[in-house]
């Protein structure tokens, strides 16, 4: 098998860092010092929203994982075990998936306690455990798993007027038939050869992606069409980021009109909490939320009704964004009745996590839901990046209507409507949230 030079270089670099970092660990041990691994803390409390960069970043807090701490000893062992497996894979020119790594490292440690009783313990039990250790190694080494040639299942797909080089093959993404190109786990090894597109449309739903693809949306509007098929994986995020950064294309994100859709957008734009150490590389700060927005469903008048309640929390400034309703709803009263779905308790809870309890408490009218949220979410402050006037407007309608909508509903109104009216109008009029 011919190994591409890109891979070779990545391997060499990762091996060097591994050796260097763990030589220090060994040195400490030989000097009789406490064996510790010092790494950034990967927890919510150490995740910082950088207002200037508009990114979720890993904070400055470090944790010292010590072998001598009973609560950390197992993790210490797991980290070293995982490092040794990754090391071997790198040396042997392999491309393990995270699942491979889980199986390679999973074995029993048998030992006897002081009274001589035999015990058996697995190095790890579930893949969740070994996945967490991989993330620890990434932050400990400051090397991403893609750079260590660790693969994961492909999830994201792309079509459009784009020619890339992957490995030693040149691929034309406009010649994929009804299928699409699966975004590979190491998108950094992709080379952009040629492009003829004006923007990128990322669709949350795979089904809607396929409909737009078959409809010829990307040809007609000179778009690169991408789907993340739900929560975006690292490869899809990195690929979108490269399109934005290297090809300077505007990025539009189309999701369901519900709290999960909003969060998917925010993951693309500013990063996620569990992977905040990668935001600098994965997030696309220019990404725009094109829809489906609550005002598209209910019109801006609906938001205006909430204006005084919101002003009591956020002050008069909020009125400037909301006070003058310009936009009419895209859906008629009858269509709304047919397409919207009643929000479930879980949806409402998630929305409160995003925007904060105070907004929910002011706007929810349904007494039963209001009481439920009070029991569950009292005092939740919300994520700062959602507490902007535009999102407050969006989510306030969600609370007062307790309704959500899936993108498919827009397609049900007519695929033509979605492809030729809704999306183009939104882009042309600049009707998005940034």
């Amino acid at each position, binding site marked *: 098998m011919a190994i591409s030079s890109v891979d070779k270089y990545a391997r060499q670099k990762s091996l060097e860092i*591994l*050796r260097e970092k*763990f*030589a220090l*660990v*060994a040195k400490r*041990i*030989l000097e*009789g*010092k*406490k*064996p510790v691994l010092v790494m950034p803390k990967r927890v919510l409390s150490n995740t910082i929203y950088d207002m200037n960069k508009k990114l979720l970043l890993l904070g400055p807090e470090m944790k010292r994982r010590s*072998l*001598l701490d*009973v609560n950390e*000893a*197992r993790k*210490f*062992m797991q980290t*070293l*075990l995982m*490092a*040794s497996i990754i*090391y*071997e894979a790198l040396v042997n020119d392999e491309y393990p998936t995270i699942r491979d790594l889980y199986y390679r490292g999973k*074995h*029993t*440690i*048998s*030992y*006897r*306690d*002081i009274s001589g009783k035999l*015990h058996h*313990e697995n*190095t790890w039990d579930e893949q969740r455990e070994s996945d967490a250790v991989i993330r620890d190694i990434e932050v400990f080494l400051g090397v991403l798993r893609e750079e260590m040639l660790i693969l994961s299942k492909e999830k994201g797909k792309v079509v459009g007027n784009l020619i890339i080089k992957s490995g030693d093959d040149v691929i034309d993404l406009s010649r994929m038939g009804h299928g699409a190109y699966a975004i590979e786990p190491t998108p950094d090894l992709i080379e952009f050869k040629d492009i003829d597109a004006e923007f990128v449309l990322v669709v949350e739903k795979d089904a809607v992606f396929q409909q737009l693809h078959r409809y010829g949306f990307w040809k007609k509007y000179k778009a690169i069409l991408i789907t993340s098929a739900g929560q975006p994986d690292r490869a899809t995020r990195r690929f979108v980021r490269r399109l934005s950064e290297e090809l300077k294309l505007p990025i539009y994100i189309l999701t369901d009109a519900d709290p999960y859709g909003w969060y998917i957008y925010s993951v693309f734009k500013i990063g996620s909490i569990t992977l905040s150490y990668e935001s600098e590389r994965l997030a696309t700060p220019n990404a725009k939320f094109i829809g489906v927005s609550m005002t598209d469903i209910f019109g801006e008048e609906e938001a205006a009704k909430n204006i005084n309640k919101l002003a009591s929390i956020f002050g008069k400034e909020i009125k400037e964004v909301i006070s003058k309703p310009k936009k009419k709803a895209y859906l008629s009263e009858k269509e709304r009745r047919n397409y919207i779905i009643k929000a479930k308790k879980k949806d409402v809870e998630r929305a409160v996590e995003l925007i904060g309890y105070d907004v929910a408490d002011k706007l929810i009218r349904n007494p039963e839901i209001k009481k439920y949220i009070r029991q569950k979410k009292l005092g939740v402050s919300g994520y700062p990046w959602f507490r902007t006037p535009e999102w407050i407007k969006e989510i306030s309608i969600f609370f007062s209507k307790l309704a959500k909508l899936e993108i498919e509903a827009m397609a049900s109104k007519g695929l033509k409507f979605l492809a030729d009216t809704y999306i183009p109008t939104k882009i042309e009029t600049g009707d998005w949230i940034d």
Partner: protein
Amino acid sequence: MGVMSAAAPAERYRAISPAEFFYKYREIAGFSNPARALYQAVREFVENALDATDSHGILPNIKIIIEKADENREFYRVTVEDNGIGLPPHVVPEAFGRVLFSSKYILRQTRGMFGLGAKVAILYGQMTTGRPVEVITSQPNLRRIYYFKLRIDINKNEPIIIERGSWRKNRDWHGTIVSMTLEGDWSRAKQRIKDYILRTAVVTPYANIVFMTPDGEIYYYERVIDKLPRPPKEVKPHPYGVDLELMKRIRDGGSFSTVKEMLMKSFQGIGKVTASSLLEIAGISPDLSPKSLSDRQLLELVNAMKNYKRFRAPTSEALSPLGEEVIKAGLKRIYEPEFVEAVTRKPSAYQGHPFIVEVGIAFGGKVPLSSDKYPTLLRYANKIPLLYDEGSDVSTAVVKEDISWDQYLVKLPAPIIVLVHICSTKVPFKGVGKESIADVKEIRNEIKLAIQEVARRLRVYLSKKLKEEEKKKRVVSLAKYVPEIVRALTIILGDGQGVKAELLEEKLVEIVSLRTGIPKDEVHNVVKSVEIGV
């Protein structure tokens, strides 16, 4: 009378001898069936043997032999030998051949109360096998050893001497060997008898005890301590413990010129002043002759004594507690526990009877696992083990109801034994079996306090042990990962390039040992026990 006898049915009354009485009512003394009889006979002779030694300051050497005495029938020959004070030869026939002859009428703590048991055993043996009892005895100051072969004449309550003899001592031996044959049931009695001897051995660490069974087994409990319990002294009765019967016996038995003198000389804690005020309360003139007192007057006197508030507490000189050292040595000898402690409480009294409670606790080692309700209980009354009726004993109530064991870090079931010894001039037994002690408030309270005191020391020990174990557990939870860590590091850094696996392991063991305070070789043992699977 004449009228009475005319109306009464024509029944014939005749006196029966005590020997005949016990022969007929042998169940009372515990000889209800062959199994129980064999057990009871062993008990009676062993207890006599111990009384003949430790109560007289002699370190006991006791030998118990049970052997099959007939090929066809279930006859067993029981021989018990001691190195005690022996008996004067002229009292031997009476001591073994007449019921109610005993040296045990005085008021002091002894194992058997009236020496009755041994004679009932002999009667039982004679009745079931027809074979006589043999006794060999000598006293320390005598030059000869005496031998008797006896039978009891049941009707006359008299000993019949079948054979007697004596020979010169050619070594300095003293003691008694009793040998008798009875119908028994060894297979059903053996567990009880073994238990009884084991439990006796627990409280007699100062005794050498050899026990040979019909199965050819030999149990040997070797002396581990030279200290004897304080021997009991004879004391006069305390006025609180008096009743009309005792008063009558004192009146009839003594030769006192006045009632006042009788009171002063017959009881503890009564001097001139107390005697005078008692008689005044009872309305009896102090100068009367005791013989002239009516039963009614005696009853007045008894009541006056019972209600008098200012007596001193009864003396405990008559009591012979085992002592903390003996209890600890005894528990150690049998159970080799990791923890053992004991306490002897100060004397106390109930209804005019002095008593002392002693408690020992053994934990771990060869101590068997208890039930999950309460610790294994070893009960003793006046140094005698109590084997039956545990459920109704006051000690059982205390360990079950008054003590919450988890408070003392004991998680039941646990390898724990609680020994409770109650000694008193009058142990409040429940029922005729004398196998359990009644729930007397004063005694229950003393048992509780004693157990609490020892259990507190157990808690200190256990909490220390727990901490130590915690520490060791911690070491295991670290050390078990050492081989995996060494393996991983040598893969990454390459064995031979300055990083030797052995050296890394050695250093890690050193670090873990240093930081946890557990010795290096213990850490090493854990590391060496580790096997990494595939």
